[in-house]
């Protein structure tokens, strides 16, 4: 069996590490590209959201490279994501690609299904699970740390693009690291190298912008057209709470790490949104409230075009803005590659935040 899985940003690093440690053969899809989008949009249902199309494209490219099984996360609730594994399986089977699907359903709602797929996947490899979890988790922490540092350093980089180049180098070093020591060395190397390219002060007002929205669009820089990089180049420090470790903690293995550190976004969303609307809708609202409390200058809200949970969040957010005075820019993203419209909105948003902050400082 050769197992593949979608990238979802840098999450593939974690998946590959854990599955390799279990002794499973893996195929990481080639980096997402125009070809991935072309394949995904051709064979996915037209009305599906962009994450499904991109994931399907990843799978098709990995199958071309010899993969014969797919590992996908499941889900439940109003977001269509819970059904994506089934839709993707159908799309692949319709193409005559009869690959096995291993779906990891959320343990809170479908414990039996989860145990079933884990048993089928792991077989006699159970003894290796602790070590696989340990290395996977260590790599997840490493990716998050590299990301966090890159978001802090990019607005101050001394030559344009250097942080992003060192970032991809660091992610690949983390991917290649085979021991915990190597992983930590890769992170330290990044912090030192990128740190050496950072100017002491950015000269500007030091804008801090939070990024919220649907988790896949946030985590996958290909899907979101490198929004964090763009904001960094405009001089803003990006604050993003939804990361790989956060996603694992809430979605894949809510035990034993249970909760994401810091205030609970779900509770913070009250009274604007009091119940689960699927996906990350409630988190988007909650993190905006928390962003206002932490004095972030503004929030950028990313939603895949037609995403129901985030549309609910989007219609709630103006009230949060009005009450707490935190501007929010909602961006609906799909497969388009014309970036002028995106840049226009981001630049205008940064102008708005700069003018606002300048006015308060005076």
């Amino acid at each position, binding site marked *: 069996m050769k197992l593949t899985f979608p990238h979802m940003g840098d999450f593939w690093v974690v998946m590959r590490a854990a599955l390799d440690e279990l002794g499973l053969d893996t195929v990481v899809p080639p980096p997402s590209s125009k*070809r991935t989008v072309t394949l995904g949009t051709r064979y996915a249902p037209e009305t599906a959201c962009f994450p499904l199309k991109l994931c399907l494209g990843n799978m098709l490219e990995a199958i071309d490279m010899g993969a014969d099984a797919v590992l996908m996360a499941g889900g439940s609730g109003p977001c269509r994501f819970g059904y994506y594994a089934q839709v993707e399986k159908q799309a692949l089977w319709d193409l005559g690609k009869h690959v096995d699907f291993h779906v990891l359903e959320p343990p809170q709602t479908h414990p039996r299904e989860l145990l079933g797929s884990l048993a089928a996947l792991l077989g006699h490899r159970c003894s290796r699970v602790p070590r696989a979890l340990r290395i996977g988790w260590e790599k997840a922490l490493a990716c998050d740390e590299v990301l966090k540092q890159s978001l802090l350093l990019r607005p101050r980089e001394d030559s*344009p693009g250097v942080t992003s180049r060192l970032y991809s180098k660091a992610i690949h070093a983390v991917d290649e690291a085979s021991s915990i020591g190597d992983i930590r060395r890769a992170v330290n190397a990044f912090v030192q190298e990128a740190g050496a390219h950072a100017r002491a002060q950015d000269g500007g007002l030091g804008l801090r912008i939070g990024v919220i929205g649907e988790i896949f669009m946030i985590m996958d820089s290909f899907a979101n057209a490198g929004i964090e990089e763009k904001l960094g180049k405009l001089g803003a420090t990006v604050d993003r709470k939804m990361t790989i470790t956060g996603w694992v903690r809430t979605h894949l293995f809510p035990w034993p790490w249970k909760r994401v550190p810091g205030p609970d976004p779900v509770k913070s969303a009250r009274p604007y949104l009091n119940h689960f609307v699927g996906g990350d809708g409630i988190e988007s609202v909650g993190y905006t409230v928390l962003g206002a409390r932490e004095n972030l200058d503004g929030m950028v809200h990313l939603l895949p075009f037609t995403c129901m949970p985030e549309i609910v969040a989007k219609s709630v957010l*103006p009230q949060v803005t009005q009450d707490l005075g935190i501007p929010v820019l909602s961006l609906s993203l799909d497969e388009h590659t014309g970036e*002028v*419209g995106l*840049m226009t909105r981001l630049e205008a948003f940064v102008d*708005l935040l700069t003018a606002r902050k300048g006015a308060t400082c005076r």
Partner: protein
Amino acid sequence: MRVVLGLDVGSVSTNLVAMDEGQNVVHSSYLLTAGRPVEAVQEAVADLWRALPSCSVAASGTTGSGRELAAEVLGADVVKNEITSHAVAALSVCPDVRCVLEIGGQDSKVIIVENGVVTDFAMNTVCAAGTGSFLDRQAQRLGIDIRDLGRLALASRNPVRIAGRCAVFAESDMIHKQQMGCSVEDIVRGLCEALVRNYLNNVAKGKAIRQPVFFQGGVAANEGMRKAFEESLGCPVIVPERHKVMGALGAAIIASRQRLKSSRFRGFGLSQTRFESRGFECDGCSNACEVVELVMGESVIARWGGRCGRWERLGAAGA
């Protein structure tokens, strides 16, 4: 005379404004981009040169969706997004302005201003209904000059209801009403009302619109649209005198605020220079980015479209 230039290269029109040192507009032009932005910029500059042959350029700024390309051709000192440019221009005309409605060729936006600072904005994201191009197309279909659209709309006595959510729905409604025998005046007025409804429900959704309200962009020339906005909002809507070139005016004002020793402006010779843009697919990775390079004379002066930044960094005389 020393002038500051503002150039707004939009999808439909390319507008140029020249201001003297006292921030008075001494020249303005409105040309169609016609899918060839480089030529439109050259023509706009040639036009300025003919009008003011003795002027020299102290600074220049570009805006609009073609602002990056225009900045390279012109040698601009500032490149600014059109939202900020429109707000700056409106504030220069009326420092108390609190809302700017702008409808251009391919997009429409609303800008909310408090105490002279932009506090919120929105731009249409998914839909062409409610932009100048759609009005243009409908005018053509009805066989009327776009400039007469507003006058005709005002002559209507019994406006018909046209669906406004989607350009496709609007068009099929218009055809239906036309075949029922409704007058062109009533249909055109209904169309203006539908566009305003769509704009207020989509673009300006959830935004508090307070007076004074400015209406800018090419579509503001349409008296029927202004009237429909006034009726819908229940307050006067001001169309500034230079509504068509407000983006360019804003870019000029922003450029004039820079304290420059000398401008990067390429000089009026640029209208005679041969510019060529050519595209190619990068073969560096599987993304196959569509890279476009701009060539002036023999040398590459800029590249766009790469995702990794490999092409944007021009080496000595181009990589």
